[in-house]
């Protein structure tokens, strides 16, 4: 009985996703042989113009997540520390900088970049990190500078960022030795918006009770909206996933066997412990039905115009979750609490990611006050396992679930 129950819970799309990612990395790693250019780009960076110029985008942060998930983070972080980098530096940066020198990690390192594209809409760390890599690889670096949107995005900001979009297309024309392909760009822009829209619809299926998809599932399925955003592959994949999730919702198949409580996750996943954490919460009948992380890749859809991608991306790429004020972040979380019917919030205070973790105590307080639901702060790091204490986190989760259970009964 139990085994059939688990079989029906398996997401069919998983296999396809693995194939797509394998093909993607093989293509990237053999780019030098096939005569294509490779760009390394930050996770929140403007990838679409790269695709318009047939450049293969590669994401050190996605690679960092793979390093974390394969539990190879500590080794690489220690190596970076031996090179002289502080242990307080983001563990994605540490593992990437170390990995580049030894071609380590689960896939033997990333392909050598022809150029680096750095968007500082996610943090300031990436600036120095990409400068280090530009020096190491001796390749050009383009910095896409998005001002922090404390409360608004005004016309000065729009002009400032919009001008950089033009500089960016000129940079790519120069790096590729041919004019920027504005026609192709239109198509890529349309596909990007379509991909984000479909990804949002996939996440929205978690509004169902039980939720057919959890944040832990989303951490996995996220890979394509990050790495292949702007391609037909991503759109097709998410359409298929959406159909599967809708079907599961119709049949009442939940992501976990016995959903009693619905939680929201804040911050990056703890990549080396996603399984442990999801089983831990599931053992309490708790499903993480929403998270601020995976939704960040479709959170600025409202600013995007698919018919004028280059024009609207100045705002779209500036007003992403990590580049807005704490009040707006709290509003976003509070809205998600309502939308997904959340009973409690779990915040991962992530030693690596300062912009994500800095305002968490305020967000926690605001959401607790406004929504009247409890929240839990757990301290860890997305890649560096040395910052994870199992027994402490175990106790905190047990105690938190006792509180939630007492409240609901």
């Amino acid at each position, binding site marked *: 009985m139990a085994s059939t129950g688990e079989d029906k819970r398996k997401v069919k799309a998983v296999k396809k996703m693995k194939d797509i990612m394998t093909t993607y990395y093989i293509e990237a790693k053999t780019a030098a042989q096939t005569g294509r250019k490779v760009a390394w780009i930050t996770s929140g960076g403007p990838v679409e113009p790269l695709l318009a110029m047939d450049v293969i985008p590669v994401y050190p942060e996605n690679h960092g997540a793979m390093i974390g998930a394969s539990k190879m983070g500590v080794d690489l972080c220690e190596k970076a520390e031996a090179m002289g980098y502080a242990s307080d530096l983001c563990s994605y940066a540490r593992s990437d900088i170390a990995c580049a020198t030894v071609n380590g990690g689960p896939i033997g390192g990333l392909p050598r970049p022809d150029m680096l594209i750095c968007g500082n809409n996610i943090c300031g760390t990436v600036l120095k990190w990409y400068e280090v890599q530009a020096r190491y690889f001796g390749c050009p670096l383009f910095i896409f500078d998005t001002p922090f949107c404390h409360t608004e995005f005004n016309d000065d900001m729009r002009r400032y960022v919009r001008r950089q979009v033009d500089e960016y297309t000129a940079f790519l024309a120069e790096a590729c030795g041919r004019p920027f392909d504005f026609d192709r760009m239109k198509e890529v822009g349309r596909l990007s918006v379509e991909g984000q829209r479909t990804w949002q619809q996939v996440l929205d299926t978690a509004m169902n009770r039980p939720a057919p998809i959890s944040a832990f599932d989303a951490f996995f399925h996220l890979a394509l909206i990050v790495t292949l955003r702007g391609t037909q592959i991503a759109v097709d994949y998410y359409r298929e996933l959406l159909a599967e999730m809708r079907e599961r919702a119709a049949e009442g198949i939940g992501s976990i066997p016995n959903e009693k409580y619905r939680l929201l996750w804040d911050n990056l996943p703890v990549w080396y412990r996603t399984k442990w954490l999801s089983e831990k919460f599931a053992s309490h009948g708790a499903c993480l039905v929403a998270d601020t992380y995976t939704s960040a890749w479709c959170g600025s859809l409202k600013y995007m115009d698919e018919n004028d991608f280059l024009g609207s991306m100045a705002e779209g790429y500036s007003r992403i979750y990590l580049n807005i004020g704490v009040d707006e972040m709290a509003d976003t979380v509070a809205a998600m609490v309502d939308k997904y019917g959340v009973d409690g919030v779990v915040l991962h205070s992530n030693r690596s990611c300062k912009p994500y973790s800095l305002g968490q*105590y305020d967000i926690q307080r605001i959401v607790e006050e406004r929504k009247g639901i409890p929240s839990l702060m757990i301290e860890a790091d997305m890649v560096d396992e040395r910052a994870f204490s199992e027994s402490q986190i175990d106790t905190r989760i047990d*105690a938190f679930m006792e509180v939630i259970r007492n409240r609901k009964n």
Partner: protein
Amino acid sequence: MLTAGIDVGSISTKAVLLEDGRFVRGRVAFTGYNAEAAGRRIFEEILQESGLTEDAVGGIIATGYGRKSVSFAGRAVTEILCHAAGARYLDAEIRSVVDIGGQDSKAIVLDADGRVKTFAMNDKCAAGTGRFLEVMARALEVDLDLFGALSLQAENPARISSLCTVFAESEVISLIARGEKRENIIAGIHESIGSRVSAMARRLGMVPPVMMTGGVAKNAGVVQALGKALDLPLRVSPQAQLTGAIGAAFLAARPE
């Protein structure tokens, strides 16, 4: 009905027997390296002391870090719930609890009915925990039990500014080298714990009356420093160290 609470902490293990909610006996022992054996041993001892056998006990709850290794317990409940229940058992008015444990400090706020409303625990760091005091006692070569009395004699508490236990220890060592009085150093250590733990408790918003529970509450110096930092009087029960185990034994009488 007889019920038992077994609180296996990182430093000490506590056991309590209640009969129909009435306190029968409590016991404290060192945990040592084997949490399971420590739980089993203390349970046997307390039964023997009371002239009882295991089948006389109608319900057992384990709590504390080793809660899941107590195989003879009916269920495991976290320290948060047990300290809350224990504090209310000892004093029915209590609305907030602060516990400084061996490797964890916690602040808990209860609603009027005594249910846990919210809680916070220290971050992954020994500063502001019982372990911090142990390290300092070793550096000062003073019996930890004397800390409370000595610190109350301090004229001018020394300032310990490091948040990190290891750095604070070297600060203490340099204070010793400089000839600072022991009483002042100890009082400084207590103030450092007080400010650390109160920061966490304040974030939660303490609702009076507040009780301090756990073994560290026996140390009058910490109680004073923490009360000062919180700007609130702290209630302390003579059975503070047994609070978690009392709460566990109390909850064991109730259906899950």
